[in-house]
Each structure stands twice: as structure tokens, then as C-alpha cells.
């Protein structure tokens, strides 16, 4: 319990900075909506008639740019990138920092098992990603509502998007912890897990550019929950939910097992 509280306190400052980053991102992005909206339906028709790769370069995909929810859908990809980077670095750092700061011995000679240490750290990270998700949801809801001139409410769509985002955050959090727990040099944990994230992101971009690569979707979590599917009402795809749940469970259990046997690198 002490570790849990200690970690939460340590995370507070960075969490506030991340929330401000999200705020700037959503506010900055949505303020451009006014300009797009005013140029009206013609842009939409033009975009729709373009090949898929072209839409990808323009960053629109098959989203309806003239509606506020469609426009938010573009932003959502970048919000996903931000929150998953937060999650992956959090996961990698929260475990590897003890060795980096040379406090691992101090911590592990305390009368608690390694499992308890990891569990407390895991719970603290879970709270952090959950708070970030909630803040993103609130900010998004308020900003979308502000620019929404129709009577329709988009709360449910946004909530669904945030649900997908939370699963991705969990996925990358457990990736970060499992890398940090198993890698030999703790210093490299954050770099390696971030590299995996960036590779996944670029892969998802390449899939947008070339339809023949569609089959690789399963390898990049950024394709699991796409704004265009969720907003248009298709909802989550069962296969991707299963894959993510499986990955989270496997990587989390691996974190516990690997850390238990870990030879500390001090």
C-alpha cells in the first residue's frame, strides 16, 4: 500500500503535464474545425471521390469532415498516439527506474515480496492511465460539444472511442512493464518499448497507404479501434478485443514471472 501511494505521488506531476498536453491538442485541433466546416460539403465530396491512399495522405480517411464527430475522428488518432506513448513509457519507467536511480536494493530488502512490489506499481500505473483517459474524455466531450451546432449529442460515440483507447493504453502499459522486467539493461527499457510503439504506428500508416497490406492489421494495435469504424456505428471488432485481452494478460503475467526471477542490474 505504501508503494502504491508513493508511486501515485511520484506520478502526479507528470500526469498533470500530460493532461495539459491533451488539452492543448484537443483545443488546438478542434479550433481548426471552424475553418474546415465553413468550406462546406464540397470538400467532403472531393475527398470521398479520391482513392484511399490519397485520403490517407490528407489525413481524413473515410471520415465526414463537415460533422464535428468526423473531424474529431482525425484528432483521435493523434490522441491515441499520445496516450499510448504515455502508457508505454510509464510502464517501462515505473519498473526500471529503481535500477536506474540505484534504489532497487533499498526497495527489495524491504519485507515485501517482489510480486507485491510489481502489483503496487501496476495498480498505480493503472490509476494514472485511467485518469488520463478520463481527462481526455472530459476535454473531448466539452470541446466537441462546444463546436457542435446540431442537436445531436456525441457523448456515446466519444465514450466508445475512449473505451477503445483505454484498451490500447492497457496493452502498451503491459508492453512497457514486460520489457522493463525482462530486459537485461534497464536503461534501454523505455527506448525499446517506445520503438515498438513507433514501428506499430508507422505500420498502421503504411496500411492506410496501401490496401494490400490490410492483412497486417492484426500486428498494429493502432488499427484495432479506428475512429471511422466506431463513429459510423460498426463498433468494436470481436477479434481485436480478444487479441488485445490476450496480449494484456500474457504480457502482464510475464512481467510478474520475469521480475520474480530478475537478476538486478545495478
Amino acid at each position: 500500500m505504501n508503494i502504491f501511494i508513493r508511486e501515485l505521488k511520484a506520478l502526479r506531476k507528470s500526469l498533470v503535464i500530460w493532461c495539459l498536453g491533451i488539452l492543448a491538442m484537443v483545443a488546438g485541433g478542434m479550433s481548426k474545425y471552424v475553418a474546415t466546416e465553413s468550406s462546406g460539403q464540397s470538400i467532403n465530396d472531393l475527398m470521398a471521390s479520391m482513392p484511399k491512399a490519397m485520403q490517407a495522405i490528407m489525413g481524413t480517411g473515410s471520415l465526414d469532415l463537415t460533422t464535428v464527430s468526423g473531424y474529431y475522428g482525425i484528432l483521435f488518432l493523434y490522441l491515441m498516439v499520445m496516450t499510448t506513448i504515455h502508457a508505454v513509457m510509464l510502464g517501462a519507467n515505473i519498473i526500471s527506474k529503481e535500477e536506474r536511480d540505484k534504489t532497487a536494493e533499498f526497495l527489495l530488502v524491504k519485507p515485501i515480496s517482489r510480486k507485491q512490489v510489481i502489483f503496487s506499481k501496476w495498480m498505480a500505473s493503472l490509476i494514472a492511465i485511467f485518469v488520463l483517459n478520463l481527462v481526455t474524455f472530459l476535454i473531448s466531450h466539452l470541446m466537441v460539444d462546444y463546436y457542435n451546432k446540431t442537436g445531436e449529442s456525441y457523448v456515446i460515440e466519444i465514450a466508445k472511442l475512449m473505451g477503445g483507447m483505454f484498451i490500447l493504453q492497457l496493452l502498451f502499459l503491459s508492453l512497457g512493464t514486460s520489457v522493463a522486467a525482462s530486459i537485461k539493461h534497464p536503461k534501454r527499457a523505455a527506448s525499446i518499448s517506445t520503438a515498438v510503439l513507433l514501428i506499430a504506428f508507422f505500420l498502421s500508416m503504411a496500411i492506410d497507404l496501401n490496401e494490400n497490406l490490410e492483412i497486417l492489421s492484426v500486428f498494429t494495435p493502432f488499427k484495432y479501434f479506428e475512429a471511422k469504424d466506431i463513429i459510423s456505428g460498426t463498433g468494436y471488432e470481436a477479434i481485436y478485443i480478444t487479441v488485445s485481452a490476450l496480449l494484456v494478460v500474457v504480457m502482464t503475467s510475464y512481467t510478474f514471472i520475469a521480475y520474480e526471477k530478475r537478476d538486478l542490474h545495478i
Partner: protein
Amino acid sequence: MNIFLHEIRAYGKSTFVWTVSLIALVLFFMSLFPSFAKDADQVNELLQTLPEALRKAVGIEIGHFTSILGFYSYVFMYISLCGAIQAMMIGASILSKEVREKTVDFLLTKPVSRTTIIVSKLSAAFVSIAITSLSFILCAYFIASYVKTETENFNEQAFFLLSFTLFFVQVMFLAIGVIASMLLPKLKSVLSLSLGVVFAFFFIGMFGSTVGEASVRYITPFKYFDSMYIIKNSQYEWSYVIVGLVWIIATFIASFYIYTKRDMNAV
């Protein structure tokens, strides 16, 4: 000289990995160009049928987008994002790692002045980045010549000018990294700081145009070079180059000043 060689060696592996990754990234994306070029022809035909006013309303000249240079400039945006992360990480870590890893008293008790230390370290960082940028530019050129369609030749001067902005962006982020590590003496996680700052600038560049195009462009190094402008005119917008150089020189001088005066935390 010893410090310089030691740092070059210390960053050798990571420089190599970064260089290879950047080249792999551009290779992967450029290999998608041939199929993209087919789509692009349809787009061009489509655009011909549109009224002139509408074409202007869209705001971008799509003709540029569909050429190999246009496609390359799209990919290049992400290349410079990665390059910026690399440069910022080197910049933020090269001076601060001594304190973090508790080797600073070992280094500073050697019979070399702090000026020698900072000069050697910064030149090592500079050389590492130059190696990455230059190898990238060469490989990107070969890749581009290979994937271009037979009929289409691209403007090589514009290509090199565009690619060379990678080096400029990297040096700017190197400077940002160095000054950040000087201003934040208790810096612990170089990666978090670097990713945060680089992505912040990247997103400002992407969504910033609401605040007024010109002023925002001076804020984020990613927007100092407008790829469309370079492709069209085969030259840089010199006011941005000058502001960039002034910024780089100013940060380096400030870093010298802070580093030579700083009270180091020994073990």
C-alpha cells in the same frame, strides 16, 4: 580528443541503429509509391474536371502531392520526426548523463577544462547526427531514383534541398536538447523529455495554423521549411534559416556559459 572519441564510440551503436531505421522507414514507404502513383493519375484526372475555384478552396496543390517529390515530402515529415527524437535525445543526454550516472567527478578531475569537455562532447553529438543525416540523404536518393516511374524525372536539386532539412532540423533539436539539459539539472528520464518536446512541436506544426500561419512557423522547427515551397522554388525561405541559425548559436553559447559555471553534484 579522447573525450570526443569516447563519445563517438559511446553513441556509435545508437547512431547506427537510428541511421538504419530511418533508411528502412524511407525504403518501406517509398516502396509503396509505384502503386500510389497509379491512384494518383486518377486523382489528377479528377482534379482537371473540377472548377478552378474549388481547386483553390481545397488549399493545396494536389498536383504536387501526386508526384514522387510530393509523396516523398509526406514521408519525410515522419522521417524528420524520428530524426528530431534522435537529435534531442543525444543533446539532452550527452552532458547530463555524467551527473546522472555519477561519473561527473571522475570526468571533471581530469586535467581538461570544462570548455574542452563541452566542445568535445558537442562535436561528437554533431558528428553523430551528421553521419545519420548524410547517410540518410544518400540512401534516400538512391531509393527515390529506383522507384520513380520511367516517364517521370524528379527535380534533384529540390530533392536534396528537401532532404538536407533533416540535418537542419536535427541540429535545432540538438540545441534544444542541450539547453534543456542545462536548464533542468535534475533531469532523470531523457527519453520522456525528448519525446514530449518533439511531439509537442510536431503537433503544434500540424494544428497550429489557426494562430496565424507565419508566427507559428517560427515556433516549431518542423515548419521552418515548407516542403511545397522547396519543391516549387528549389530554395529555402531564408528568413527561417537565419532565425534557425541564430537560435542554434544562441543556445550553444548559453549552454557553454551555464556549463562552465555550474555547480556539479558529485557523489
